[in-house]
């Protein structure tokens, strides 16, 4: 029996909503899959598509991006700008062949500890089912490999 596949998931979240929601999941002692690593940013407006590419380079099988619900942004508009970028970037990744199932976006408020835990669990399960992101691993492997000729 081989070991079950444990996906590597990297999450980029805003500090005011989703990070606080993750803290709430903790204070509520909810349990969720330990596969996610969280990077804290001031606002979803600060979350650059570059971060997603770098997470993939680090071998993430899944990437999460999450922040305040529309209208709740601490900085009033950051999440509206973010939403447009995600919309465009998601379509681009999809067209290039990076499946949308591997890069997920959500709104999770500071009060939604339960949603946070459920989100992490469901995404972890989904990515577990998808398996390792082998095509991207191949790209990463190329950075280590000698020249072909």
């Amino acid at each position, binding site marked *: 029996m081989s070991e079950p596949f444990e996906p590597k998931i990297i999450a980029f979240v805003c500090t005011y909503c989703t990070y606080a929601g993750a803290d709430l999941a903790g204070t509520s002692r909810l349990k969720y899959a330990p596969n996610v690593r969280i990077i804290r940013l001031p606002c979803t407006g600060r979350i650059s598509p570059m971060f997603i590419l770098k997470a993939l380079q680090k071998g993430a099988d899944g990437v999460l991006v999450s922040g305040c619900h529309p209208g709740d942004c601490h900085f009033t508009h950051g999440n509206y700008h973010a939403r447009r970028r995600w919309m465009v970037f998601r379509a681009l990744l999809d067209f290039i062949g990076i499946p949308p199932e591997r890069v997920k976006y959500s709104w999770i408020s500071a009060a939604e500890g339960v949603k946070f835990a459920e989100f992490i669990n469901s995404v972890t399960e989904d990515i577990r089912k998808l398996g390792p992101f082998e095509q991207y691993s191949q790209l990463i492997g190329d950075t*280590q490999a000698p*020249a072909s*000729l």
Partner: protein
Amino acid sequence: MTKILLIDKLDNCVERWKAAGITVIGPVHRANISVYAAVEHASEFDFGLVLPDRSIKELFFPQTEPMLRYAIKKDTIDTIECMPPSGPRIIFGSRACDASGMAIDDPLFGWDYKDTYWFQRRNESVIVTIACIKADDFCMCTSLNMEPDSTKGSDVLLRPLENGKGWLVEELTDRGQEAFTQIAEFLQESADAPAQTAVVEKKFDLEASVAWLQKPENFDSRFWKEISMRCIGCASCTYLCPTCHCFDIQDEGDTYSGVRRKNWDSCSFALFTMHTSGHNPRSTQSARWRQRIMHKFNYFPGKFSVNSCSGCGRCSRQCPVDMGITETLQEISKLSL
């Protein structure tokens, strides 16, 4: 009576070479471009091309190549040197310009420091050149005092037969002879005549141009600005050039480990000479284009007694704005009249 190789037998040759552990490389199509690449069968070759889009250079000097791998530990950094894959190779169906381009760069890579990456590949490769029977508007080997059937840099020269069924074989070096000895049984004697080599019109006066370039006052000529005004500063000419050889060394990796790589770089880029201070000694595109021409026809020959151009014409052929060495030297030829 001379030795000939029939196209029909080429697949046997490929088989034989491969069986002997030799990688067989030649002009092929890959996703809408033509390149020199390794093949399984002779049927993959396309000898009908004037020359492949991408030059033979990348077989010896790839666009990116690891030099060493490193691992960062608490107090030390472990390094492992990387060498290119080793093993004999036959490059079948090079062109005279591409092959000579490699010979032009040999002294550069072997000058003060012997570039082991370059010479390992050079020493393990046999270049079989096919003389050109057709040329296009951009070919300019004759302007560089070469011919479509020049032998410089080649180990074997093949001359297409007039009947189109094969090639006359001229073994030029011991390495070439050795490679063809392995396939001796597929060669035959024949009196078939070779086809006429391509006629490549002479496009500029090299000697006059070089003399003009060597005059110090012409360094600041208005000419440079005028000729390069439309240059957009991409690297397509330098990267497709068989003789352009500049590279950059980059470390890539994460916190724990990484790879030091040697990557092509280009004098067309503003960043090429950018100083940390923000000052750029070649701050304009005209200065960069001048550098490229000066380097090829003044500085390089000054050091290695050979022009750093083999006349393939790729720079002009692929230029997004229809520039190139040909036009520049044509204009200089006119100036020097």
